[in-house]
């Protein structure tokens, strides 16, 4: 185990860095897009709601690895078309394909989480805002969104962790993230402790993330009394 750490630590840590980068970028872009999607999703008009519902259902109902293959290998079938559009350079790189797939996947999950949170906002608070004559955009900015994000916060943290772990499938399309490097080192050494080292790195990242996220949550809910804060968790 020690010799694996000694000789392959830079490789594995480099892989871990790429894993972190991919997860961070994908979840961040998805987080930005999730809000308009969630607002579309709660509209009463069916033609606004339905496309978002289908999008969410598709990405939550199919395996991530199948989505990844669809984007990475499936785009190859449209190569002449993509070359003409100048997009082939993007789809040729497996990291880009992984990023695109993970962003869409995370977008579906985050939209659904936000949707639940938006619908869980206490209706009395919204009525109070309306009674004070707030227009919809002010209502959203000052009342609905701050409350909804506090409700959604723990679930969004879980989604980030799921993305981080799910991201390991990118190694199958030759992305050299932590899992990819681990598989390479194992195929060279046939030393099972490679997997244990990788597991430790993954556990460290997820545990660190959970602790940070909990602190952030405490900070967000600092105006609530301790009792209610505990109940909210």
């Amino acid at each position, binding site marked *: 185990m020690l010799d694996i750490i000694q000789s392959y630590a830079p490789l594995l840590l480099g892989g871990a860095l790429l894993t972190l980068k991919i997860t961070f970028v994908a979840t961040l872009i998805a987080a930005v897009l999730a809000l308009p999607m969630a607002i579309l999703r709660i509209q009463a008009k069916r033609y606004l709601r339905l496309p978002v519902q289908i999008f969410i259902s*598709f990405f939550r109902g199919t395996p991530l690895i199948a989505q990844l293959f669809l984007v990475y290998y499936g785009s190859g079938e449209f190569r002449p078309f993509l070359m003409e559009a100048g997009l082939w350079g993007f789809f040729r790189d497996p990291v880009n394909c992984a990023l695109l797939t993970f962003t869409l996947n995370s977008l579906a999950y985050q939209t659904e989480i936000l949707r639940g949170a938006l619908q869980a906002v206490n209706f009395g608070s919204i009525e109070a805002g309306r009674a004070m004559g707030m227009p919809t955009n002010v209502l959203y900015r000052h009342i609905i969104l701050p409350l909804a994000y506090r409700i959604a916060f723990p679930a969004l943290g879980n989604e980030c962790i799921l993305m981080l772990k799910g991201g390991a499938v990118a190694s199958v399309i030759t992305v050299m993230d932590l899992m990819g490097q681990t598989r390479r080192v194992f195929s060279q050494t046939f030393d099972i402790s490679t997997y244990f080292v990788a597991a430790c790195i993954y556990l460290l990242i997820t545990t660190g993330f959970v602790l940070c996220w909990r602190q952030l949550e405490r900070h967000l809910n600092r105006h609530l009394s301790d009792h209610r804060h505990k109940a909210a968790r």
Partner: protein
Amino acid sequence: MTGFSEALISLSLGDQGWGDELLKGLMITLLLAFTALPLGLILGACVAALSESKQRVATAFSLLYTTVIRGMPELLTLFMIYHGVGLVINQTIKWLNPDMGHFNFSPFLAGVIALGLVFSGYAAEVFRGAWQAIDKGQKEAGLSLAMGRLQIFWLIERPQIMRLALPGLGNLWINLLKDTALVSVIALDDLMRMTNIAVGATKKPFLFYVTVCGLYWVICILFERVLAHLEQRANRGMRPRH
């Protein structure tokens, strides 16, 4: 139009198309999921029971178990089981009898164990949550009727745990179905791998991956329906919410 009929031919059953191969893969996928399910449920229930124990060691073990399983990528768990257990078995065989041949650890078994372990880690948390959601007064009521600990569990707690845990377990089941696609990486001929083979032979990646996504999608929607029905049935004794 020719593109469409060509697509139909490649997806048809029989010698020319890959439809029958895909269906065979689908059977393996379902078989894998249905074999891993009981393993995961039993293990998960055991770990949940440990977490409710008064023994410090037992609670610490269950905490460690769920943290580690849930903190690792499913793919890594799968590789660990497939390569790790195979290696251990082979070394043990060599140590016992150096003349014996190489033992091939079947990818199906590895898949069942790995997916079962992953399921159990999450299921333990679901069971624990359901167990803790039951009003403590009910246990006290049982004690006051001179029921034993086992009787209280079987007659009072167990039926309610099953009802309370059902939504969580349903989500895990859908996740399990989707996670089965990972076993294609260790060369088990499931739906995903049959699709990869078909793509390799026909050079029509988009068509086949869209088809396989559609298949997984249909299966997930079907099971969601079944689960909604089960939940409705499990809650039939509850007071209806207005």
